[in-house]
């Protein structure tokens, strides 16, 4: 169900959530977010409030708040829209995070593809500072918090939170081994919360209206609303805000999807579903909703789509761990082989399907763990193997 909160025309007064929070204890702010069951809006869905509670309890002479504005999942642009229009809300959400965990310094890690948003964010921050909602002694409370903008340099993997931290520390964006988790040892080895743009944007609403209200926004046990960027074969591509737990069919109707063959939910690393699956829900219970939904009509060659995705993963793997570095290249090779008939039967295909399983369980980070999803889904559901198998019989 379409339900506008983050994208509502009438937003609560800027700073009102911060003002309210400053009258609460930091721990209560973190508990409120935890109780709202706000799952990370970047795609992994880890409960944001749990991070806040853990980071709040972690010991460290300094703590940091990091906003992951590195949305790079193919087909995602919801954070761009939020940054364009609601950068001030985002910053307020970050300040709430700072207050909750005891941090005076926040960073927005903005992807290099969005340089035109720099002045927008800087203007919002300046306005916040002017209103004493950011900077020293916010609203006379004694709580100080400021932010700094840090630019990415073109690497999808930096959307993974520990790769992002590595990048912020001036290194290659190679995901770290966990544990330790960022809440204990994040930026510069200090307790750090890393949350997505949309996650931070939801926080002021939660503080103002309470956890119960936020939970009530969701459908079927899910909490809050969720933004979806929809593109591909739809009449009205764009960003839509729906109750979390809405069905995929509702979103497709809103955007005017036509002649649907397949829908890619959650970007290249997400799942591919068929036309008949429109009752499936956008929820971490079913189809993890990162924010990207791409619609393919019946004219689309899904092998071409798969090739595009695998090329993407081959380009964007950090190259650190074996399954992802080598596995993606092998899967791309298998796509070519499928097209050329060199992989022609289930028997030829099986090692690559097995490879997807191995990548899912043995890769170091989410990139490698999810890169095989599209291969498995598309090869399993959309790609027809030749009727005649030519791998046996001798004439090659």
């Amino acid at each position, binding site marked *: 169900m379409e339900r506008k909160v983050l994208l509502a025309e009438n937003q609560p007064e800027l700073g009102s959530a911060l003002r309210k929070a400053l009258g609460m204890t930091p721990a209560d702010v973190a508990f409120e977010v935890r109780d709202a069951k706000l799952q990370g809006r970047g795609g992994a869905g880890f409960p944001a409030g749990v991070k806040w509670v853990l980071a709040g309890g972690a010991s460290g002479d300094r703590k940091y708040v990091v906003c992951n504005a590195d949305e*790079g999942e193919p*087909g995602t642009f919801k954070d761009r829209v939020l940054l364009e229009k609601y950068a001030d809300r985002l910053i307020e959400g970050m300040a709430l995070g700072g207050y909750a965990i005891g941090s005076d310094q926040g960073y927005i890690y903005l992807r290099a593809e969005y340089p035109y948003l720099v002045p927008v964010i800087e203007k919002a921050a300046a306005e916040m500072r002017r209103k004493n909602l950011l900077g020293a002694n916010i609203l006379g409370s004694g709580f100080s918090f400021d932010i700094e903008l840090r630019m990415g340099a073109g690497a999808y993997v930096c959307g993974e939170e520990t790769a992002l931290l590595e990048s912020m520390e001036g290194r290659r964006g190679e995901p770290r081994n966990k544990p330790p988790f960022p809440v204990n040892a994040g930026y510069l080895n200090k307790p750090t919360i890393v949350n997505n743009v949309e996650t931070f944007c939801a926080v002021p609403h939660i503080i103002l209206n309470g956890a119960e209200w936020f939970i009530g926004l969701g459908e079927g046990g899910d909490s809050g609303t969720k933004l979806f960027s929809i593109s591909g074969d739809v009449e009205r591509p764009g960003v839509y805000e729906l109750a979390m737990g809405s069905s995929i069919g509702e979103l497709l109707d809103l955007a005017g999807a036509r002649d649907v063959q397949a829908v890619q939910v959650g970007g*290249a690393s997400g799942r591919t579903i068929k036309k008949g699956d429109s009752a499936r829900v956008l929820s971490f219970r079913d189809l993890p909703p990162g924010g990207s939904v791409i619609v393919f009509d019946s004219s689309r060659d899904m092998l071409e789509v798969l090739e595009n995705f695998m090329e993407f993963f081959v380009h964007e793997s950090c190259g650190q761990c074996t399954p992802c570095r080598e596995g993606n290249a092998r899967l791309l090779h298998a796509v070519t082989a499928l097209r050329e008939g060199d992989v022609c039967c289930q028997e030829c295909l099986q090692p690559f399907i097995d490879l997807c399983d191995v990548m899912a369980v043995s890769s170091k980070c989410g990139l490698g763990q999810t890169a095989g999803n599209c291969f498995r889904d598309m090869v399993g559901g959309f790609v027809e193997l030749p009727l005649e198998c030519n791998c046996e019989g001798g004439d090659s």
Partner: protein
Amino acid sequence: MSRDCMEIVAEGLREYGSGRERMIQLLTKVNEELGFIPPEAMIGIAEALSVSAAEVYSVVSFYSFLSAEPRGRNIVRICSTISCAMQGQREVLEAVRGELGIEVGDTTADGRVTLETTACIGLCDQAPAMLVNGTPHTRLTPEKARGIVAGLK
């Protein structure tokens, strides 16, 4: 005439300090001003940040937007991700290649334009799209893209 790269590094060090975590900011600054990061700049940054030159080169080589090789005065990045690919990206790319007379990854002989493809730039609702020196151009047609590229100085 562009500034001496060491002057840019020195300015960056004044602006950001010489903490290890400032490396990408320093590199980006040089990269933005010169279009690439010359070896002397990498060595200068390595020494200021007390890391090896290999480390700096390693970081530069990791990121798509940083370059150790000289590039054109203008960088055209055409999105090659699926939503753009579905809306005629291939024809746009063909048109731009034809206009410039170069392949993807190359720079025109006069140093005017470097042509690249890029992963998703988050403009899927206005596909096909490209970034020209960081500025987005959307809902491209071959004619529109050709015109934009032709107008680059």
